[in-house]
Every structure is written in structure tokens, then in C-alpha cells.
């Protein structure tokens, strides 16, 4: 029981004030704060140092604990979200329980936001120290709980990032579930023709990886599957998956059903007889598919899928399939629950609906296309066999305008304020492809800045300049169409020459901004991951923990965390896989001991707290002839919602206990301890 653990001793607190170079000392008078701390009740020693987080700074803490026999430590420095673990270790090094440490944030929430008010900032720092000392005086010894970690992982999203993460995890000996919502893995990269700046064929480098994923014994590939529900915590996630009704069974599933030699082999006999024609989303609607379909011939797994939204259930495909009996038009969605230790999210991106920027006429003018449509048109396996044609008349374009930052770096509120990061480079590649494939054709690139930041990227830019692409620095104001010829007039300002440009072209390619996929929002909420203002998933720390999230055991890979190109996506995926494998290889993780405890003498057994708990961690039990609440610590995540609700004050929320918080309130408002 927490109450019993509390020592009767008089608290002896050490206060340490950090200069953080001039970050804090620039607006807070450190000496003043340090002297003030000495006057506070229970403070045995106060000290200051340039950088408390450095080795000598941490050493001061450990030494002071021994020298002054301290019972609690307060460090007034940066945010506990940054250095609480650091100083807890220092506290531990001094022989004190690490949870007897409290931090006063005088940087992020003080010196940095009151830079020109040194007096007020100093006053605020004193208050912060007083509040922290009040809490530190009431802190108790706590012991983290270790829980075993399930030796399996899950990757959500089967693009190049998700595939890489799954492969790395699998190669590290971890059984990995790779969950992909579409019928095939491969993601956006499989839609691309070539990759910059090396001009590798995208499919040629991607499809072997797709096959590796399929063949890897440690990867269980779950395509056409979505995450439905998530419960549990690091080491012990219970993830419920919805296997969408595919209408087709694999050879393995057929064997399990006792159909010898059955199951889908990808022969395509069903497609020939299917009477329903729909646009193929993989080709962005520029090519047809049937109601039973594969996106493209290289899909993994090579299994057909029935689109039940458009299938008329005529049964012709079932007949065509014959003895393989692979098609089941009565199939229904299936739910399955898997237990995993850690999760990597790699949910990728989609194209911003650029028709919202109506001035460029996308969806209004036939010959205005997006870059992704360009990729499909120029791709040898695309709908035109790699021949770039004008959608209006099928002619070869002679002059093609590229509009960069189409919806990116847009502060009008319609587009996206951020840089989509790879549009400059792929547009340079598109210009190269036009010059290479269509002698005499001229690409015109309308740009704001060319951001060629990567390895060999700037060199690639020079190369395209030399090849004869025309560069016009200026954002395109609007595009108009000649209704007869369907030619387009691009109106812009050439900001280098300082004069307007009106250019007649045959085709316009919009390098449209990217945004998180529609499902990202749902998925992130299921896993309890935050997002940035633009909807990209939020990393635990932008510099020092770019793969982690604030939910322990959940990691990020690729564009879902923010726009990045293929090499960066793959690199982050390898990072995320490595991070996700650490708890699994360690075998157990320590949970912060912020558990709720029942103070049984005070508990009236009313049970009002039980439904408050979002994790069903609380239950009423019979004990010594009366009803009291009991906490299952393994389920408790330490939010304290029960503690905020208990009418009898019978819940002791460790590290955020009522007397501790009340002491903080009193310390601020009454100027000391009550």
C-alpha cells in the first residue's frame, strides 16, 4: 500500500538550477532563483550549473544526495519531456529512488516564451521551483513493473517503407504481420516509372523486394486487411484485423478446405468472362479493370480480388475458374486478433485533390494532368504502353509545362503550407524522360525554388539543365484552355526577368502536393499516436527520436511521419524496425509505475470508478467482509481518470497523488507548504 510506504522523515530537498548556457540564464536570474530556493521549507541545499544535464551537472546531484542525505531532488531546467529520464538516472546514481525527482520547467515554458521580461521570468521560475519543491517533498519510492514482450511485431502499410521494416524485423528473427489495406503490397512506388536521380526502373528494384516479403518465412502477409481495433500496451498489443472479403481463396486456403490443386493461381481466366468494367484505381482511372481484378501483373500475392461493390454475382467467373474452385462470391469479412509486442506504422500518403486549386483547371481541362498520372502514362507497363499522349486527342505533346509546388508551400488555406519534398526531383526526372523519349519536345518547368538536397540530386539538376529543359522561376497564376485545340495557356510571372509569361503548351503536369492517406487518421487514433497540424503522424522527438511515438511500442516509418523520398523512407523504415526489435530482443519492458492504488480504508465500494477506467483495470472485490475496489496493475496505464472521479478520495494515483497535487496548488497560491 502506497500510504504505508510513505516515510515519516522530514523531507530534505536539493534544488539545482540550470543555466542551459544562455537559454535560461539569458532571461532568468539564476542566482536569484537559487538563493530563493534556499529559503523554501524542506530545502537542504541549492546549487546551480551551466548545463545540469552534462556529466559534471549530473555528478552534482549524486554528490549532494550523499553529502546532504537528501530525500528528494528538484532540477529547474528544461522540459521533463526532454530530460526527466536523464535526471532520474542521476538521482538513482546518488542512491535515491529515481521517482523522488521532480522537474521545474523554466526553459520551454518560461525563459523561451518570456525572453524580453527578465523580472517576470525570474518570478515565474521561483514559483516553478516552489511548486516543484512542494511536490518533491511528498514523493515516494516507486518501482517500475517489468512485463514480458510478445516476440512478434506488426507493420501497418505495405509500401516500400512497410516492406523494408517487415523484412528487417523478419530477418532479425521476429515473426512479423504485414498488414496492407489494398489487395497487393508495393504501395506508391509500384506506380512509379523511374526513380531519381539514378533513373532505376522503379518496378525492377521493387518487385524483387515484394517477392522477398512474400517468401520470407517470418512474415505473415495480410493483404486486403485493415486494423479494426487495438488493445493492450507495449509488449502486449491485441490487434483485431478485418480481413476484407476477397471473394477468392489462395492455394493454401484451398488445401485447408480439402480442394486438391485448387485456389487462385492468378491465371486470369475469370477476367475474360467478367461482364463488369470499372476504372482501375492503380492506373488512376486511366485504364479499365473488371469486377474481378488484379491491379497489375506483378502484384504480390498474385491472387485476384472481387470488388463486391460492383460485382453483379452472375457467376461466370466461378464457371471459368472450374475445378480450382478459387472463387467464392458469398465470402464475408473475417475478424482475427493477433498478439504483437511492437508495431511499425507505415501508412504512406495520397495525392492532394489538386482540383481544389481551380485556377489550374485540373479535371476541367483535358490536358492538365497530375505527376502521378504522368508516371503511369510514361511507364512501359502503364495504360498507354509508355507513350505520353494528350488525353484530349491522343497526340504526342511537343511542349509540356510542369507546375511545381502545386498545392505545396501554399499559405492560401486551400493547399498545404509544407514542402512535399520530392516534387522538384521527380519533375526534373519527368523533364529528362520527355527529352529522352520524344526528341524535339520541350519541357518547361515553372518553379519557386528547385530543392535538390539529396546525394547526387544537385548534379542531376545540372544535368537536366544541360539537356535543354527550360526553367521559369515563378508560380503559375492560372491556366486557360483554347476550346478548339485544347491547348493550354500558362500565365505566370518570370520573377528572374521581372516580366509576365504567357506560354502556349500542349500539356500541363501539376506536381501536386501530398497529404496523409484518408485512413491514417483512423489508424493513428486506434494506436493512440498524435499527429501534427497537417495530419502527419507525430514522432516522439523531431531530432532525437524521429522513429518513435509517444505511445511506447509504436514506431513510424516513411511518409506517414512527413514527406520524404524513397531513400529516406527506406532509411527510416530500417530505423523503425531496429527500434521495434529492441523491446522484443530484450524480452521485457519496464512500465512507468504510475498505477492507481485503492486506499482500502477510504473505499466505500460504491463502484463509480469502475466504468471510468478506459482499460477495464478496475473491479470490485470482496475483502474482509466488505466490498472494495481493486486495480489490475498490468492493465492500468496511469491516466488517473479514476482518481479524478472518486468521491471518497480513496484512489492513490502514484506519482500524481492528491496530496502531491494539492501541495503544488497550495505552494503556488499560498506561497509555501500548508
Amino acid at each position, binding site marked *: 500500500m502506497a500510504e504505508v510506504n510513505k516515510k515519516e522523515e522530514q523531507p530534505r530537498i536539493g534544488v539545482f538550477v540550470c543555466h542551459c548556457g544562455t537559454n535560461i540564464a539569458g532571461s532568468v536570474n539564476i542566482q536569484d532563483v537559487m538563493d530563493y530556493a534556499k529559503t523554501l521549507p524542506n530545502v537542504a541545499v541549492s546549487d546551480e550549473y551551466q548545463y545540469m544535464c552534462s556529466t559534471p551537472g549530473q555528478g552534482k546531484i549524486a554528490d549532494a544526495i550523499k553529502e546532504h542525505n537528501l530525500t528528494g531532488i528538484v532540477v529547474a531546467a528544461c*522540459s*521533463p*519531456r*526532454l530530460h526527466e529520464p536523464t535526471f532520474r538516472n542521476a538521482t538513482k546514481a546518488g542512491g535515491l529512488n529515481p521517482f523522488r525527482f521532480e522537474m521545474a*520547467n523554466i*526553459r*520551454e*515554458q*518560461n525563459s*523561451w*516564451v*518570456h*525572453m*524580453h*521580461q527578465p523580472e*517576470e*521570468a525570474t*518570478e*515565474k521560475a521561483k*514559483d*516553478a521551483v516552489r*511548486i516543484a519543491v512542494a511536490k518533491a517533498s511528498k514523493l515516494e519510492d516507486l518501482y517500475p513493473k517489468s512485463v514480458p514482450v510478445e516476440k512478434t511485431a506488426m507493420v501497418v502499410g505495405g509500401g516500400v517503407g512497410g516492406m523494408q521494416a517487415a523484412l528487417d524485423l523478419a530477418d532479425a528473427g521476429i515473426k512479423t504481420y504485414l498488414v496492407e489495406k489494398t489487395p497487393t503490397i508495393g504501395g506508391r512506388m509500384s506506380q512509379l516509372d523511374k526513380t531519381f536521380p539514378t533513373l532505376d526502373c522503379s518496378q525492377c528494384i521493387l518487385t524483387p523486394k515484394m517477392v522477398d516479403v512474400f517468401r520470407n518465412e517470418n512474415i505473415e502477409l495480410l493483404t486486403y486487411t485493415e486494423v479494426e481495433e487495438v488493445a493492450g500496451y507495449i509488449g502486449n498489443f491485441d490487434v483485431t484485423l478485418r480481413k476484407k472479403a476477397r471473394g477468392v481463396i489462395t492455394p493454401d486456403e484451398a488445401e485447408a478446405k480439402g480442394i486438391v490443386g485448387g485456389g487462385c493461381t492468378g491465371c486470369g481466366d475469370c477476367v475474360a468472362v467478367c461482364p463488369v468494367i470499372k476504372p482501375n484505381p492503380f492506373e488512376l482511372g486511366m485504364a479499365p479493370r473488371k469486377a474481378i481484378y488484379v491491379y497489375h501483373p506483378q502484384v504480390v500475392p498474385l491472387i485476384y480480388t472481387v470488388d463486391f461493390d460492383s460485382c453483379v454475382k452472375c457467376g461466370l467467373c466461378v464457371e471459368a475458374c472450374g475445378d480450382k474452385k478459387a472463387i467464392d462470391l458469398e465470402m464475408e469479412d473475417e475478424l482475427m486478433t493477433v498478439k504483437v509486442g511492437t508495431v511499425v506504422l507505415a501508412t504512406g500518403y495520397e495525392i492532394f485533390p489538386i482540383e481544389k486549386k481551380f485556377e489550374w483547371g485540373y479535371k476541367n481541362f483535358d490536358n492538365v494532368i497530375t505527376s502521378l498520372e504522368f508516371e503511369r502514362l510514361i511507364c512501359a507497363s502503364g495504360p498507354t504502353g509508355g507513350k505520353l499522349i494528350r488525353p484530349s486527342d491522343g497526340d504526342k505533346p511537343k511542349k509540356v509545362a510542369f507546375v511545381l509546388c502545386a498545392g505545396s508551400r501554399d499559405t492560401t488555406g486551400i493547399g498545404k503550407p509544407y514542402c512535399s519534398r520530392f516534387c522538384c526531383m521527380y519533375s526534373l526526372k519527368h523533364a529528362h524522360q520527355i527529352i529522352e523519349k520524344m526528341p524535339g519536345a520541350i519541357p518547361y518547368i515553372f518553379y519557386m525554388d528547385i530543392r535538390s538536397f539529396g546525394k547526387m540530386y544537385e548534379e542531376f539538376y545540372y544535368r537536366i539543365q544541360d539537356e535543354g529543359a527550360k526553367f521559369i522561376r515563378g508560380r503559375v497564376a492560372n491556366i486557360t484552355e483554347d476550346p478548339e485545340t485544347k491547348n493550354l495557356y500558362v500565365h505566370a510571372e518570370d520573377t528572374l526577368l521581372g516580366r509576365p509569361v504567357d506560354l502556349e503548351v500542349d500539356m500541363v503536369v501539376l506536381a501536386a502536393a501530398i497529404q496523409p492517406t484518408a485512413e491514417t487518421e483512423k489508424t493513428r*487514433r486506434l494506436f*493512440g499516436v*498524435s*499527429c*501534427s*497540424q497537417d495530419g502527419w503522424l*507525430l514522432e516522439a522527438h523531431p531530432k532525437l527520436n524521429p522513429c518513435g511515438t*509517444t*505511445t511506447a511500442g509504436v514506431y513510424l516509418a516513411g511518409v506517414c511521419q512527413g514527406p520524404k523520398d524513397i531513400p529516406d523512407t527506406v532509411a527510416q523504415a530500417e530505423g523503425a524496425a531496429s527500434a521495434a526489435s529492441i523491446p522484443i530482443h530484450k524480452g521485457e519492458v519496464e512500465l512507468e509505475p*504510475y498505477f492507481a492504488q485503492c486506499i482500502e480504508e477510504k473505499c466505500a465500494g460504491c463502484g463509480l470508478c469502475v466504468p*471510468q477506467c*478506459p*482499460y477495464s483495470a478496475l473491479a470490485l472485490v470482496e475483502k474482509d467482509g466488505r466490498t472494495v475496489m481493486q486495480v489490475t496493475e498490468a492493465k492500468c*496505464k*496511469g*491516466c*488517473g*481518470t479514476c*482518481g*479524478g*472521479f*472518486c468521491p471518497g*478520495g480513496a484512489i492513490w*494515483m502514484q506519482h*500524481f497523488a*492528491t496530496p502531491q*497535487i*494539492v501541495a*503544488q*496548488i*497550495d505552494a*503556488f*497560491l*499560498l506561497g509555501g507548504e500548508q
Partner: protein
Amino acid sequence: MAEENWKPKIIAIICNWCSYAGADLAGGARIQYPPDVRAIRVMCTGRVDPLFILKAFQDGADGVLVSGCHFGDCHYLEGNYKCAKRMFLLKSVLKNLGIDDKRLRMTFVSASEGAKWGTVMTDVIKTVKDLGPSPIKEFAK
């Protein structure tokens, strides 16, 4: 109205995952706001016992801010909903006690909304300054 150099005492109880992180982000971005608020960190606004707020007013606080994650974004699924429910109820209790319910404010600031945190700070402080010192202050002494 308050005298010229009166400085309001405002306490903010904010959740670790969203609002505290948002406040840290405001710092990282050097967004400047007035310095009259003191923050207490809890893991979740669900932890906020209405008695904490009543205690703060009893101690003479001029204003109390509770700030958590946006609805649907709670790190603990639904702590912010539960807190918001309590705050609605508490506001009516405050009115009955003769405390203007504008002195208690609940806001939702995410970990990425540093600029919003600055706006909230400025706004909360202005609201409390306009209201003047808490009427409880006299009795608290």
C-alpha cells in the same frame, strides 16, 4: 476593475501528452506570451479532480485553466471527455458560489499546436485580467 499593477494568479493543470507538449513546442518556437500562468503537469486531464480546482479558488486563484488533448486524441482514449463533463458541472457549481465561471476554462491544445498555446495563454490571462481579482481572495486570508 483591478488596480494598475495587479498581477493575476492563474494555475494551469495540463496533460502530459498534448497540452504540455504543445506548451513545450511554443517554447521551441519562441512564441512570446504573458507570464502570469503557472503550470502543473498531470498525465491526463482525466486526473483532474474538481476538488483541485475548488481548492485553487479557495487558495485565492484568479483563474484556472485545464488543458488536454483534442476529443478523440486522448492518449488514454477518453480521459479528456470525462474531464470536460466534470468541468461543465463544475462551472455551474462555481456560478452558485459567486465565482464567475469564465475564471475556469478548459481548452484543447495538441502537441503540435505551439502557436495555439500562445494564443490560449494570452486569451486566458486577458479574460482573468478583465474580470479582476477573485472575490474569494478576501476570505482566503
